[in-house]
């Protein structure tokens, strides 16, 4: 298993820019039956950062969850990731679109 230590060392050497796409991609691929169909794309508008997530139709429920619970949890994590990426000031609204 890749222990926390190696991971930590990597983090300290070079802190990679947060990639919101990677975060969503990792979670989505871990939850769906068909990871090969997972597509994530980031789009920036003036007022918002939009993360578009596409999965196979039969996997939609897995990334949305009952009453949107999974999607909402992903949104909460995106907000944390975004905060670290952009700093508090210029932080934009963040939107997760699933289709």
């Amino acid at each position: 298993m890749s222990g926390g230590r190696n991971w930590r060392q990597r983090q300290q050497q070079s802190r990679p820019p947060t990639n919101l796409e990677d975060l969503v991609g990792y979670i989505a691929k871990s939850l769906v039956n068909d990871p090969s169909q997972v597509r994530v794309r980031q789009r920036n508008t003036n007022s918002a950062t939009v993360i578009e997530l596409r999965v196979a139709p039969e996997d939609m429920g897995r990334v949305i969850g009952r009453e949107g619970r999974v999607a909402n949890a992903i949104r909460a994590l995106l907000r944390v990731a975004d905060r670290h990426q952009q700093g508090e000031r210029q932080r934009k609204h963040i939107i997760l679109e699933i289709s």
Partner: protein
Amino acid sequence: MNVEESIEVTGDDVEQALAKGLETLGVGPDDVMVEVLEEPASGMFGLGSRPARVRLRLLTAAPPPEMEDASGAAVATGESAPALQDSGSTGDGNVVDKAPGELSFQAAMETTTFEEGDFEEDAEVGKVVLAKLLENMAVRADVEVRRAEATDEEEPPWMLDIVGESDLSVLIGRKGETLASLQYITRLVTSRELQRRANIVVDVGGYKSRRMSRLYALASRMADQATSLGRPVALEPMPPYERRIVHLALREREDVTTESSGEGQARKVNIIPASR
């Protein structure tokens, strides 16, 4: 505990009032008992809004005696095991450990620290998943694994505690909502990996353990209040995990019963004195 120092503070919300009070007293969250006197009311467009009011009572060495009856079997005596400190991994950050004895009540969530290699599959896979999530969120932190003591018949969960030098409160969020999301996703991914329910709990710098101690204290005091007033007392709205702790805390008490009322975010625990 005869001599008590307590102050009342207000703020936009409970968290803020609490932070203000802690600053005034110059102590950490573990040194006080928090009583929510008034929940904030938002009012329409700021009209008729009312600040949150909380009372902070400075805790001296020992917890008040009445906690012991309320805690029942769920609260073991003794000190909590000090967290495994990877050398250099945790500084004197404000979210990490306290000297033993400072909060004997943390025994409510007594844990045992495990060496790497001892981990069961749940903890092992869960730790990798959580570390991967944190990495993708660009949060610099370590994950420490501990096993919670059994509180009831169930198999005690593995605690994945996120510790680090930087301020990790962003991972907790308002009323622990971000932490709940992080735990939800970690469990979901881990369970899928294991193809069964992963028995893990995600914590940040012992936040849940401390919160649990506080909830036990709160539950006990509110139960006393309910019996002395002879009428039900309602606690502030809480997430399911916290309501469960309150119910468990008062399970052994014969002079009160507890029930939850309200929907969704507004759901709260009512403590009802037993009729005689």
